């Protein structure tokens, strides 16, 4: 898989993260998800689920998401923020 060489737009990032969340926890809670809702609480994710999300987003973006990034990834806005920032590894 080749990593995208451009930064994602906020809309692309949001769509991508929602797509991945749908593979882990589909359903009405996801459809109703707000940008600041706590993902673990709103979708009932446990650490295995969260790891699956991190892994899939990493695969699809080619960006390595480290555990040090987790604190900022509690809600959708946090994910969009991370994915629209230039990847320091590139």
């Amino acid at each position: 898989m080749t990593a995208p060489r451009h930064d994602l737009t906020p809309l692309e990032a949001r769509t991508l993260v929602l797509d991945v969340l749908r593979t882990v926890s589909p359903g009405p809670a996801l459809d109703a998800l707000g940008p600041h809702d706590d993902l673990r609480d709103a979708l009932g994710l446990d650490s295995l689920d969260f790891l699956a999300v991190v892994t899939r987003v990493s695969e699809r973006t080619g960006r390595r998401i480290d555990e040090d990034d987790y604190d900022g990834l509690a809600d959708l806005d946090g994910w969009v923020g991370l994915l629209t920032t230039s990847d320091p590894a590139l």
Partner: protein
Amino acid sequence: MAEFRMPSLGADMESGTVLEWLVGPGDQVRRGDVVAVVDTDKAAIDVECFDSGVIERLLVQPGEKVSVGTPLALIAATGADAGPAPPETAARPRETPPPAPHPAALSPLVRRRAAEAGLDIATLTGTGPGGVVTAADVDHALHPAVPVAAPLVPSVTPGPPEPVVAAAPGARIHVSPYARRLAAERGVDPTVLRGSGPDGVVHARDVPAVPAPVVTNGAGPAPVAATALRRATAALMARSKREIPHYYLALDIDLGPALDWLRAHNRAIPVAARVLPAAVLLRAVVLAAQAVPELNGHWIDDRFVPGRGVQLGVAVSLRGGGLVVPVIRDAGTLGLDDLMARVREGGERARTGRLRSSEAGGATITVTNLGELGVDAVDGVIHPPQVALVGFGAVRPRPWAAGDAVLVRPVVTATLSADHRATDGALGARLLREIDRRLRRPEEL
């Protein structure tokens, strides 16, 4: 020609219902392939094949309930591995004893169970087809005073007959019967699903898991019929509290060293292989169970039968409610990374309601981790016939005395529920201290 038989998928399983065949006559199968879905009352389980070859004939139709050990299908050896394939030795080469001289107990699982219980199969009376010794026969030999050990699990399909086939008459061609039933239970229209089977047939795996809706009648919560899973859990837990004199121990453990080590470990490996703290705790339990083997095994017939290897049960709570315990086989042979991979796979399959036969039942010790649920500690209920259950609560920053100073450290409370018939508190304490010791030296995990 090999016979594929109804496997024993748990210590308390006597029979199972074939829900769905994933193969048909003429299909090539390999050992380890998932060939059927079996309902054990607790869960629908993907049953793996013990042999390689071509399916000759299906002997049991979907919907039929048969006892453990009953032949379900005939598998003909193919050219490559032709010859008089020994019917069962291919199943579990390391765990199955050499072919028993007595031909009437062919299921390796039954043989193993008998061996674990110290029974000679040749002395048992087989009630299965053709006089085959079934798991039920082993149980009856073990509990002669309780001829019907069966009520553990409802022995007859309970509840009203499922009106499901009638529910979706138009969808008959492309949806398997079990998938249709699941879809009806979950309020999903099966005809809109995309099938993963040959020719786009919708199988149970294609039906999205949706928590069962709670029906209310406006005057407070209406009584909801217990699911089969709920009843099976109820029966097992009631038996545990009835039969097992539990004792309980607890120990607070400083997880600082383990978490620091894990963070560095995870930075050096691919994201997909990342190890969770929960797996580190499991690894410590496995090592501790090896060090204190008196807590790893089964209490059967008034004596302790040590487990062969650590068969690690990992309790997983389901989103829609309920508890499933996938078993990690021979966990002692797995390093931390491999153990994590198995936790990930087993957890995903448990969540989707699709455990495999090789990970259902037979645990020698179980771990329940309620940390994700935000509680500090759990005094768990032992899963009979096991003799110990290890519990973990949440890892939290807590004040921790170190010498004369008070530091803030990430602390977890480990608990042990143990069977006082099998061990005393001194041995139980050793297990918890051993877990603590292992976690202080994470580089050796």
